[in-house]
């Protein structure tokens, strides 16, 4: 999966990594100052968090479907639950329905503890 992420230029720009953990596949977003959206807090850009969740959903879909092509988002909704501070962010995704045409995925991102998510997303993707 890391090879796949490396093949996507924007995932490389963000510095996303994929890790196999005891509880399953997790994506990893190491902190970098150029990911900041709000310098006052400081907090990671909402668009970066959204992109990270979308990538996490795509990684999961590719692993489960075995497709070679990147699934295309139809609609993607992100709930911002807490500000994402200047540190590492992790995310995982769950597939609600793996369809032949459309799949439904939910992804969550957290920093300090998985029980305190910074953002959650719900996406529908066109497969193939």
């Amino acid at each position, binding site marked *: 999966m890391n090879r796949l992420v490396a093949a996507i*230029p924007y995932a490389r720009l963000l510095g996303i990594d994929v890790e196999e953990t005891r509880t399953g596949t997790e994506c990893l977003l190491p902190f970098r100052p150029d990911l900041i959206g*709000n310098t*006052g807090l400081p907090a990671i*850009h*909402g*668009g970066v968090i959204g992109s990270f969740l979308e990538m996490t959903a795509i990684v999961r879909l590719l692993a489960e479907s075995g497709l070679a092509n990147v699934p*295309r988002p139809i609609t993607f*909704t*992100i709930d*911002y639950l807490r500000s994402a501070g200047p540190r590492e962010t992790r995310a995982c995704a769950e597939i609600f329905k793996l369809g032949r045409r459309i799949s439904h995925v939910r992804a969550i991102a957290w920093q300090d503890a998985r029980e305190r998510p910074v953002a959650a997303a719900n996406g529908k993707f066109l497969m193939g």
Partner: protein
Amino acid sequence: MAADRKYAMRAVFGPAKFDIGRFTPHAGRLRMRVVETGPGFAVLALPWHEELIGDPQRRVVFGGVITTLIDQASGIAVACAMEELVAIATIDLRVDYLRAAAPERELFARAECYKLGHNVAFVRATAWDDEPDDPFAGCLGTFMIGSGSGGSPFSSVGRPDGGSQ
């Protein structure tokens, strides 16, 4: 929005007068630029770059790049609707991908704050590559007004000198 209302950002309304990268590091990293702002709205542009590709086969930008462009335009639109600048935070964004964005093209987004409440602002936005009336993405977003203790990152932009300091 009434024309005689007070706007904290009025000094910079019109064609781009400020560099968004100075206020938002990630927008600067993506070389995003402000095209125009006005009462409760903002138009932003994102120049094409190979680094933004999300689908190597089709060479289209990653969906999340559109989220970033729209989130940025929406935040500025909310600031452009305020009488006095306070910090805001995105509550949620729903981005609909209407079609693929054309590869190797500059992308644009226009966001409009159509309701500014005491606690929450509501925004709608579209993004296009060629014609504004042929968008490739649409978005609805909500923003919390007066989040946290920090000030607005745009507080210096709204000053009459446009934040040139």
